[in-house]
């Protein structure tokens, strides 16, 4: 057990390191270089370019740049090869490396530390993701259970057909339609944002949250209900279910105690992707609903070629994703006593 956890932890660490490598490679290979955004300003000259290259330390060898980006530039020798111009001029402004949560300063947001720009937007993303998750579990689990218990009947077919229909369009497009109809024409929900400026009350926030969270939950409803229906049907055919019925338990007890508890197991593994799903979903849903979260920040950063923020978001996103998978794997081994990890097939 411990061995399994340690092995998975090492793997996860390796994955995050790989993500930093990917981010850094893209940054180095970007056409026109990392400070290509200067081209957008017609008054910039090649002298500006050289100056900024020195300040940001882009004139140093690539491996050095990678190492200092990872581990900071305040510990290597204080010379031009190892330190950026900013760091040489003022030791307080040395990069401290992403292992100490310093992702550099944003190009686009007036030199603010990238991590601050991101942290500002974390609560919005988490609020939306968490609300969506709760809604999707609250909706998806009963749907799946109901479909399984009424297999082959109208309700089952109806649920299946509607999930296929919903999957044929992008979910963010459905969000856009609902926004136009409910927000634009009926005026039932606000058109954008997280709260009305000047009114931060809970009710107002919930009012803004309801549509984005519902649309975000659509994917979960479909996914969860499908997994659960499948698992329920598997378990319903087991001998112990027949035994439970034969000994005269009520149907309710059979379903809740014997079927659902066993069917929910594989469902937990399905949750491992939830972090990644929430992050990916955040990009599109936050754009549609003008939600001030990390996803929208990411698009802003990409369009402005703001590499520090972009890379930071990618590394943090990968970290969260890997962490989510790891946590669920470990949790799973505690929840299901039958799982033995040290035996490899």
């Amino acid at each position, binding site marked *: 057990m411990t061995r399994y956890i340690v092995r998975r932890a090492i793997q996860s660490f390796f994955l995050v390191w790989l993500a930093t490598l*990917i981010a850094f490679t893209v940054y180095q290979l970007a056409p026109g270089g990392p400070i290509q955004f200067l081209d957008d300003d017609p008054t910039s000259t090649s002298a500006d370019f050289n100056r900024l290259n020195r300040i940001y330390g882009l004139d140093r060898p690539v491996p050095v740049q990678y190492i200092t980006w990872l581990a900071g530039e305040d510990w290597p020798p204080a010379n031009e090869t190892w330190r950026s111009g900013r760091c040489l001029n003022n030791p307080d402004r040395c990069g401290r490396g992403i292992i100490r949560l310093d992702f550099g300063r944003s190009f686009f947001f007036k030199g603010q530390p990238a991590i601050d720009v991101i942290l500002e937007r974390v609560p919005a993303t988490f609020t939306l993701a968490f609300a969506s998750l709760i809604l999707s579990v609250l909706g998806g689990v009963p749907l799946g259970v109901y479909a399984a218990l009424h297999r082959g009947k109208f309700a089952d077919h109806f649920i299946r057909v509607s999930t296929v229909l919903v999957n*044929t369009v992008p979910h*963010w*497009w459905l969000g856009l339609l609902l926004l136009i109809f409910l927000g634009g024409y009926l005026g039932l929900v606000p058109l954008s944002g997280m709260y009305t400026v000047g009114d931060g009350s809970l009710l107002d926030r919930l009012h803004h949250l309801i549509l984005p969270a519902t649309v975000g939950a659509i994917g979960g409803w479909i996914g969860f209900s499908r997994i659960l229906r499948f698992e329920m049907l598997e378990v319903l055919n087991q001998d112990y279910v027949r035994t439970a019925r034969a000994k005269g338990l009520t149907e309710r007890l059979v379903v809740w105690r014997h079927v659902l508890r066993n069917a929910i197991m594989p469902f937990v593994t399905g949750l491992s992707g939830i972090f*990644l799903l929430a992050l*990916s979903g955040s990009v599109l849903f936050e754009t549609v609903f003008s939600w001030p979260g990390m996803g929208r920040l990411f*698009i802003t950063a990409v369009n402005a070629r703001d590499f520090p923020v972009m890379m930071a978001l990618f590394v943090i996103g990968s970290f969260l994703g890997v962490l989510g998978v790891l946590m669920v794997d470990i949790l799973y081994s505690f929840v299901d006593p039958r799982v033995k990890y040290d035996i490899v097939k």
Partner: protein
Amino acid sequence: MAEQSLTLPQQKIKAQAQVKELTYWGAVRRKLLRDRITLAAIGLGIFMVAITLAAPWIAENILGFDPTDTNLRIRNKPPTWATESWPMFQEFATTCQRGGCEWSLWGGIFSSSAAGLRECFAAAPGECHWLGTDDAGRDVLTRGLYGGRISLRIGAYVAAVSMTLGVFMGLISGYYAATWVDDVVNAIIMTLSSIPLLFLLIILAGTFPVFRSPEGLSFLLGIFGWMGVSRLLRGQLFSIREREYILASRAMGASIWRLMFRHMLPNVSSIIIVVAIFDIASAIIAEAGLSFLGVGIGPPNASWGNMMSGSLGSFTKAPWLVLTPGIFIFLTTLAIYLIGDGLRDALDPWIKNE
């Protein structure tokens, strides 16, 4: 002499029984022809492909617009037939927001729309914008047709790339199951499935302009979309590789390639076909998402995704910008899903559906 006496009775029986042998593909075709929903879906699919392929002809001869002709005087105009009814509908929406919906307005909306439609049917090409204009005054329907060319092309390319990669990886890891080759493939899959791929796609497409052409974007979507197929095939091959016929051909000295491509691949071909079809649909949806975010197909080319990207500021004033591409996507992917679903049943022709 002895041979003759042996074969004769058999031939006789064959002639008497007149049993027509049913080949696998014959059975598939028979099952498919009985499945009305799938046939309708195939019809819809053919229709969508046909109107997008014929887009230049339709645009020139029926609609009379060019997909890239901008006209700033007619930005975000409603469909020509709704010129009068659209303001009425907006008035209706305003009354609804104030509290009481003014349902009597609908009479006027219907009658003026009908009159407009009649006029539009009678109009010469180039006079009627059937689905309105976008924020640069381009005809939305024309762009929708042209956009389909790119979106469908991307769907097909992505399916080709991800299938090739996925089948290859799946075959290798299924064949070499539980060896280091399998471990390597699994490690790649695990890496790709634990980093936020959408983030990576956006970074790559946003940073390198190469990936904003239909071919580049398809390549990008394809190389990050093969993991599902590979995993599926690996699981299937796990049982196939233990079968007797594999053992037999291995005993006869068949090479790895022969084993993989002659004996294993045909046994999973039905799965591959079905997954490839579903892949086209998800690629179309993925392309729409990326282009909507502004990191996919860029202007002046039209794709179903980027037609919506300009609508964010004005979607309540010009909902046709959102509706048109979305309905195109819906019809196409619906056809693809239903065809895939029907094929999945048909490719298992010996199993009777209850």
